[in-house]
């Protein structure tokens, strides 16, 4: 399972870049149109629940990105294929941004619905811890001067931090706290109306496209960084 990155792969990623950017912008425009104009306001929370359309996708991708990060670190340790390390390093910062965004938008959403900006309940706190795990992963890599060692060390840390992900996922079910449980967990009958589901899924797709676009840009960045470190021209 040794995948080698060749020049034509990078050329392909480079050529796909403008299309991806265009698709991301297009998806966000459509998603904004649906989430701000086309969807009805919630009958309890009113228009403030429109924040959900950006809060929920960013929280999902914060968790998914960390799972990919930890998974690729595990695969890197198993297969010794440096591609996985590059993937982990290129995806980490996007995840950090999504985590921060879900925290901020959630906090803004919390003010009109709960009456406070922040509650110290299990899900919010574990999300905050996830943000610090991302920071630890990114900045530990920068702090260690021997970069090969730094990758191994920060990968080990990312794998240990994965313990937090199930805690976030099930914290609303384990502890009965203020944060509402997931509405779309049951695939057959989600407890949310279709008119709200459509903008949510468009925004999710848009966030996914953003994730892919920026991670591919960072992928090229990390590859160049690696080459420069190898020739020690940085």
């Amino acid at each position, binding site marked *: 399972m040794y995948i080698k990155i060749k020049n034509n792969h990078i050329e392909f990623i480079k050529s796909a870049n403008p299309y991806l950017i265009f698709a991301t912008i297009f998806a*966000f425009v459509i998603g*904004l149109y649906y989430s*701000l*104009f086309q969807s009805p*306001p919630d009958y309890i929370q*009113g*228009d*403030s629940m*429109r*924040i959900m359309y*950006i*809060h929920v996708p*960013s929280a999902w991708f914060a968790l998914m990105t960390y799972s990919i990060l930890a998974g690729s670190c595990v695969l890197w340790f198993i297969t010794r294929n440096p591609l996985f390390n590059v993937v982990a390093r290129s995806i980490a*910062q*996007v995840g950090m*941004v999504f985590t*921060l*965004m879900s925290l*901020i*938008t959630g906090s*803004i*959403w919390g*003010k*009109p619905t709960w009456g406070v900006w922040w509650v110290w309940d299990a899900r919010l706190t574990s999300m905050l811890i996830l943000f610090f795990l991302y920071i630890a992963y990114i900045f530990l890599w920068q702090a260690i001067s021997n970069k090969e060692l730094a990758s191994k060390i920060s990968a080990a840390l990312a794998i240990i931090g994965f313990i937090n992900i199930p805690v976030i996922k099930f914290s609303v079910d384990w502890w009965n706290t203020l944060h509402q449980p997931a509405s779309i967990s049951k695939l057959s009958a989600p407890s949310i109306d279709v008119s709200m589901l459509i903008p949510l899924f468009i925004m999710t797709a848009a966030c996914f496209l*953003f994730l892919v*676009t*920026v991670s591919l*840009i*960072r992928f*090229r*960045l990390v590859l*160049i*960084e690696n*080459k*420069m470190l190898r*020739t020690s*021209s*940085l």
Partner: protein
Amino acid sequence: MNELLDMGGYAIFVWSSYGIFFFSLIIFFLINISNLRKYEKIFNKTKNKIE
């Protein structure tokens, strides 16, 4: 139009959260693009020197 901007009384919350979200996504994207350009420039310069 005013009804849309008002957001049923939740205008500050909705618009500020959307604003912060898209602003930081765009800023993050631009930072990465400019970093990539910068690194490519430096890399090409050093490659030419080695050759």
